[in-house]
């Protein structure tokens, strides 16, 4: 159903780029229930996903179509991250008797199929910072590893974009935001950062925090390659989603292409190595193979 639509859209862009959906596959083998918040491994051979409420974390091997459960814990699916192609970092959240939520950073080794708590459960925000040389686990009270040892990495803290390069960490606030920044990621070649400023949408900066492009009021940017991102373009009435689609954007802001229609209620895109996976409002995963030619 989508392919004819995509061809039409391409004809309209009148840019040098030509987008072709090489294949479109519904990912359902071995998946029971809703599958949301997908995260592709850097080599696009494995896919993390959770349920609609970020409870639990599972991995689908896109070659063998087998599903492995990495965690059953609440919150595990919210911001799971690949540390290379063989390790997954995520944070679980548990409510204690004092009604406070305690979060635990976890690391899962795909080789040994073992999960390890990287810190004791602690109150407040906990996150994993994954760089090209290592991972740091940051907590409101206790941390493990140092961000400066992660090589090149990026994460957000409130309305700050924290960029580490060659052991030097700097904080940037390239655009004004009261509510904060979210969904920071490095481009595959590590020379650009994409993130969302809550009030402004998707921003692309260099590693010095200089804004290269402001791509619009979208959410959940994910790098397809060093030049293109996919994003979620959702609208709402203040209570529920009224539309949601997946857009392909060029990081410099010169090209935009709809991969799905607004009425498709497609959301939460992830991308790597020419592959896009997204979910739907009712938790169905779809994988697209994209080819972009000049």
């Amino acid at each position, binding site marked *: 159903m989508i392919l004819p639509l995509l061809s039409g859209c391409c004809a309209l862009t009148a840019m040098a780029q030509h987008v072709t959906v090489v294949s479109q596959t519904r990912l359902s083998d071995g998946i029971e229930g809703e599958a949301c918040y997908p995260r592709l491994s850097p080599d696009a051979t494995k896919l993390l996903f959770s349920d609609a409420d970020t409870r639990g974390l599972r991995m689908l091997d896109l070659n063998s179509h087998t599903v492995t459960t990495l965690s059953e814990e609440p919150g595990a699916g*919210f911001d799971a991250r690949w540390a290379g192609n063989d390790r997954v970092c995520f944070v679980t959240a548990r409510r204690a008797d004092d*009604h406070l939520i305690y979060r635990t950073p976890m690391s899962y080794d795909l080789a040994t199929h073992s999960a390890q708590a990287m810190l004791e459960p602690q*109150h407040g925000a906990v996150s994993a910072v994954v760089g090209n040389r290592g991972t740091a686990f940051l907590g409101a009270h206790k941390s493990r590893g140092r961000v400066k040892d992660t090589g090149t990495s990026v994460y957000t803290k409130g309305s700050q974009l924290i960029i580490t390069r060659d052991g030097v960490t700097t904080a940037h606030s390239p655009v004004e935001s009261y509510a904060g920044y979210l969904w920071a990621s490095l481009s595959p070649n590590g020379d650009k950062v994409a993130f969302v400023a809550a009030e402004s949408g998707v921003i692309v900066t260099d590693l010095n925090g200089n804004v290269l492009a402001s791509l619009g009021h979208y959410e959940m940017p994910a790098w397809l390659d060093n030049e293109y991102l996919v994003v979620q373009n959702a609208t709402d009435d203040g209570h529920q989603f009224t539309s949601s689609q997946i857009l392909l954007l060029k990081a410099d802001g010169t090209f935009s292409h709809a991969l799905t229609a607004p009425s498709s209620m497609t959301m939460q895109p992830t991308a790597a190595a020419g592959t896009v996976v997204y979910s739907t409002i009712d938790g169905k995963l779809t994988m697209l193979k994209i080819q972009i030619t000049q």
Partner: protein
Amino acid sequence: MKKIFLALVSAAVAITAHAVMPHVYINPGHGGHDADDRNVVVYPFVQGDTAGFWESNSNLKKGFALNNMLKAKGYTTSMSRVRNTTNDDLKLATIAALSNSSGADIFYSIHSNATGTESRCNYPLGIYRGYSGQPVVAGSDRLAETLGAVLIKNEATYWTLNRYPIYGDWTFYPQWGTQGLGVLRGNNVVSMLDEGSFHDYIPETYRLLNDNYCWLEGWNFSRGADSYFGRDDDTFGYGAIAGLLRDSRMLRNVSYECFGDDKRLSLNNAVVLLQDLDGNTLDECNTGELYNGFYVFKMVPAGTYRIVARGPEHYEQTKEVTLGPNQSAYCNFDLMRVRNTPPEVVSHSPQWHEGDAPLKCSTPIVLNFNWDMDPVSTQQAFLIDPPVQGKFTWEDSYYRLIFTPNDAFEADTRYTVTLKATAQHNGGMSLGEDYSFEFQTEARKYIEPYVIFPHDNDRVHYKNAVVELRVDSMLVTGYYYDRIHVYNAAGEEVAINKRSVKLNKKGDDYGYIRIPIASALTAGERYRLTISKELVDTAGLRLPQEIDYAFTAVDVAQEVEGLETVLVLDAKEHLVGDGATLTTATDYLCGAKSIQLKYNLEPGAEISFTTLAESTGELTCNDAIVVPVNGDLSLNRIIVTLCDYAAGDVVNVDLGRIDFNGWRDLRADLTMLPAGKRYMLSGITLSRESDNKVGASGTIKLDDVLKAEGTKPQVNGDVNGDGVVSGADVTALYGVLLDNATVAGNADVNGDTNVSGADVTALYNLLLGNDSGNASVKLSAGTVSEYIVASADGLIHGMELIDANGKTVKRNAGNFINVEDVPAGHYTVVVYTAVTATTRQVTVAH
């Protein structure tokens, strides 16, 4: 004084700080004053004015208050917005992600509600993700319960529900499946969305326009959070005292719906003082100018206080309030207005002066005062002569008294209304002197029904039955279904077809309500029609009495079954005059079709269609003609014309008025036809009498014309029963005497109750013309107003009243004719006896 409190607060925070403080994420819903925001337009604001009510404004004010109070209590907080632009109206997935990333323990999404319909209500409501009782994030149900327990105790509002409903969003929005609320989807913090009140309930809209009222809700949210975390102890030593100021009795003069105490006037610009028990003023609050009368004292140390309320035109009132630590205390005031001049009647109605046209009998009496009056003393001081039973109502916050008579005033009567000097306003001052005026009523006192169907003890065809009332004025039809009822024999109300009800409208010639019964009635069953006297016309007049009629459902088709057909009516073969059309109708009583006559008729006019002679059967004086008519309650008359083509004799037979709806078999005995003559149906006429107000137009249907056995005239000498006296009767009489024949007619020719040879002699006399038969016919009077009664030596078989134009006005198969509804004038009466017709002259005078 506020500075003193702030210093105290800082100290309290230091005391109450816990080692691990909860983190609350605050999401003031909506934002941007744009399409997905909610604007309620109330005076003095106009559509789109960002200073008016927008849900984003009040949500944000509540959020700020909650944020500040939680911080004051030592919590960590995050907010999704602190401004109100479109860009601040964050996307839902972004809000959920911010909540997750913040490290929060709980998430409050702050909203207010709207019915989305014309109905109004006001209560808070909590929603969490999941099915009701099965929250996706454990603890979310408890979060809603702890908040709701605080919010529902707010007494500075009016709740139409005295509990805090809590739902899972998958239950509350079943049409969304498990999509649920966007800010709760994927939000792994213990979370809920609160609809704090209904912002389209206008008194609440005005309260939400008060920053202090929003602050109170934010403060109560903080108490809900304390309760959730088990921190609702007395370590936070401050609270809030809040309330509403309203007039003790004056009502809001508004068109929007108000409930309970919200019906009374909220006091603008009233001043409320917070005092210690020594009378030292600690703080002051003004209720503002936006019709909410709300005040609050924030961050008040626990203790006992005096609250002094002063309305701009009201007596001061003081109450004592005790405030617990970390509590809200509510103290509402109903202030009595200062009334410092005597009451006066500033105007009255009806205004009537000698020589003016008389007033309608339903006219209410209205007195307008300069003050809001004391209803008890004022009603006691109200006199009307001649005395009239009625009811008092008050409007405009007791500034207006209305007296409405239970029944209409008497017709053509002079009334004097007096308000005695003892009438007082609520401040206790009296009128000073009597106030008096007069008015004259017109002659018409009641609605006059032209016709009501069914009549009492009527017969109604069981299928497609219709109840209808036609009256001389336009009816107020809004509540017809409460005024008109049909009950079956078991006393159960019979359902009506509301969609097909027809009601009078402006410009109609007369008032009417036409109510189809929803289902077929049961033939043979008795029913009741009741019409309440509460049915009024636009002048406020009522029916002269309640209607309570019995009627019986019948199957008219069954009643005419087997009768001989005189003429099959066919719309294509009959001609009709201007102002009418004849068409074939599929609604029939017998056969396969009927004809439909749609007409317009001027008063006194008639419309006819003729039949073809060769197509009709014969009719004699021994027959009754039967015409099945589907009536239209027009009160127009159906007249059939019979013709003896050989003799050129024409007789009109009046079948009566169409005072019914639905099918009915109109019948008339043809005893007036000359004995021995044979007639055929030559035409049917619809006639509107000159005084018929409801017959100007309509539609009737007629089915095949039938004949039944009539009430046979006992023709003296007609021994063989063929309708004529001839030589054949002599043979027949001999047969009777010789006991070898049965009597078909009347063999007792001489009337001595014995059949004998003397009857043969009498029969010969008849044949020889020796008996005139009409000499004894007499009328009761030459001038009549009610009944013409005839007498004769022999049996009278019928009478006919003929006007000066030769038109038969009335018939009756008896020795009388009722002329009550016959126009005054000179008429000829034909009296039919056994063998002849006798004419007499009569004058009808009313």
